């Protein structure tokens, strides 16, 4: 079911930041903000929770590390011990570089994939833009019109006081 949103566009990030803070002071929930670049301090202003993506890196990296240790031990000690210059089968120091590389590779790739999943980005996805120019030089503040507890008149008034270029209603999926 398509939802309804109020979309206010700005051409400078400072007014947008002020608007976000103002609306939050009046306990409006910010649905999202659209910007051509990440604006400093906006995540605090919007009250976003810190992302848990680093956990993915930690878990994936740690598992890769463990796998690399076990696999090298299995291959060099259990499966086919090979005498190379009389070195011990379990030359654990020699296994360090591959453990490190595996940690970085799997940790990095998993984080990348997790970002795409979490942000629902994938090749060929149709972009959902609430206004024009958001990837170029415009900024947009989006509020969701939730049935029942959304004071549209008050929101519009607050937005207009902060120097929005344009305020309009958007119906569809975001």
């Amino acid at each position: 079911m398509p939802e309804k949103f109020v979309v206010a566009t700005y051409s400078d990030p400072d007014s947008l930041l002020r608007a976000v803070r103002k609306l939050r002071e009046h306990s409006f929930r910010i649905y999202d903000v659209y910007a051509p670049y990440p604006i400093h301090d906006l995540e605090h202003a919007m009250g976003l929770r810190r992302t848990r993506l680093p956990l993915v890196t930690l878990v994936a990296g740690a598992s890769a590390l463990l796998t690399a240790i076990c696999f090298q031990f299995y291959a060099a000690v259990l499966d086919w011990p090979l005498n190379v210059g009389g070195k011990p089968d379990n030359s654990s120091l020699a296994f360090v570089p591959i453990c490190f590389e595996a940690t970085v590779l799997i940790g990095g790739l998993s984080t990348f994939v997790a970002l795409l999943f979490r942000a629902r980005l994938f090749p060929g996805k149709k972009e959902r833009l609430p206004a024009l120019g958001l990837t170029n030089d415009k900024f947009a503040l989006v509020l969701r019109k939730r049935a029942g507890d959304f004071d549209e008149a008050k929101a519009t008034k607050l937005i207009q006081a902060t120097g929005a270029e344009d305020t309009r209603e958007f119906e569809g999926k975001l």
Partner: protein
Amino acid sequence: MSVATGYTTTPDTERPRLQLLPPTRWVEEGVSLRQITDDIARPMEARPGKGWWICFALAFAALLNLGGMVTYLIAKGIGLWGLNNSVGWAFDITNFVFWIGIGHAGTLISAILLLFRQQWRTSINRSAEAMTIFAVMCAGLFPAIHMGRPWDAFFIFPYFPNQRGPLWVNFRSPLVWDVVAISTYFTISLFFWFLGMVPDLATLRDRVTGRIKKLIFGVLSLGWNGSYRTWARYEMVSLILAGLATPLVLSVHSIVSMDFATSLVPGWHTTIFPPYFVAGAIYSGFGMVLTLLIITRQTMHLERYITIRHLDKMAKVTMLTGMIVSYAYATEFFSAWYTGNLYERYHFINRATGPYAWCFYLMVLCNVVTPQFLWWKKARTNVAILFVLSIMVNIGMWFERFVIIVVSLHRAFLPSGWGMFYPTRVDVGILVGSFGLFFTLFLLFIRFLPMIAMWEIKSVAATGAHIAAPIGPPEGKQDREEREVAVNA
């Protein structure tokens, strides 16, 4: 906001931050966001100029030459190279180490300078990262073709199901570490580069008019719409990838150096190799970044974004790493003398006085003498001088690897095993061809993809807009004093 108190005191700032000096501006004041998009997208939208076509024709001819030479090599075998029993590694591994080294500057700029919050990286990181990827591709070519049977190249990876019985690759061998390190480095660099480009690809998707272009940019931009919830996660992931890439880049050339250092050959068997190779890699990489960016800013008219001050910063990094490399050369000679090892000592005497002494002196000229010019601001801010110096750095670093590899091998332990290496036409042809591959890819990149990170430039332009800091020539002592006075007033 008031600069006078030293605090940003905008009423709606939640956390006042101590600001001793206002940040330096890296994008001139008054450039609008739209202007930034237009400027950077222009080279992709206009037809390329004559300069681009000439460079492309040369590079593409060299690439075709590479194709021919490699085909010939695979058909006939590596006997076409000038290798012999004494010198079993020569141009192939020299080129490999050279190209891997070139790549390091890209990761340094994109990852390490990101962690250090160096804003000047924003104008150059995209093209430097592209350079990394293309350089690693060139590097990867050499181990593959030097195997003699490149169709069995996949044997170097452990894989399931293991078709060699239970015989695995030897995990104690630095050559196996190398394979893993290089493939990890390539993959992480590629993903980091692509991720950084996604917002810009979305900008282009919303900008281009042609149907095919729109389709391609649409697929590649992954449906990016600039949602801030995504931006917040995106920034975190960039930081994580930078954090992972930082030890990675230091590890890659360390592991490459272990290909030599873990052997017993005099001239290779030294513990100084890992840091020495990393410094050399960054030195040569910055040399190549300077070469490429000087050409690009002139031919693509991007002087507004790649300013003299950017070149100045890069020149300083080049100078610093050049000095570390020079110090390593001196240390090598010192330890050869101090250890009293006969073979080691002979090797270094032979390096400076033997049949390949001219390579050694060329290397010293390019890597020890050249960076000394960069003490002068005149040299660091003069495009022509910098260009010449950067070419010298490239030549010097290629010869450094040649000296390490060939000179060490040609007179190792027993005089009965001594010999000389002379490159053949195929050796030289493949070296030239690898430059063809590199430049063809780079020229296509600056033609079809945003070679400067638009969104990063925009964020830097916007950050600077709050504070009136002086723009102009590189900051000198006087500017700093003036600014300190302004801050303390």
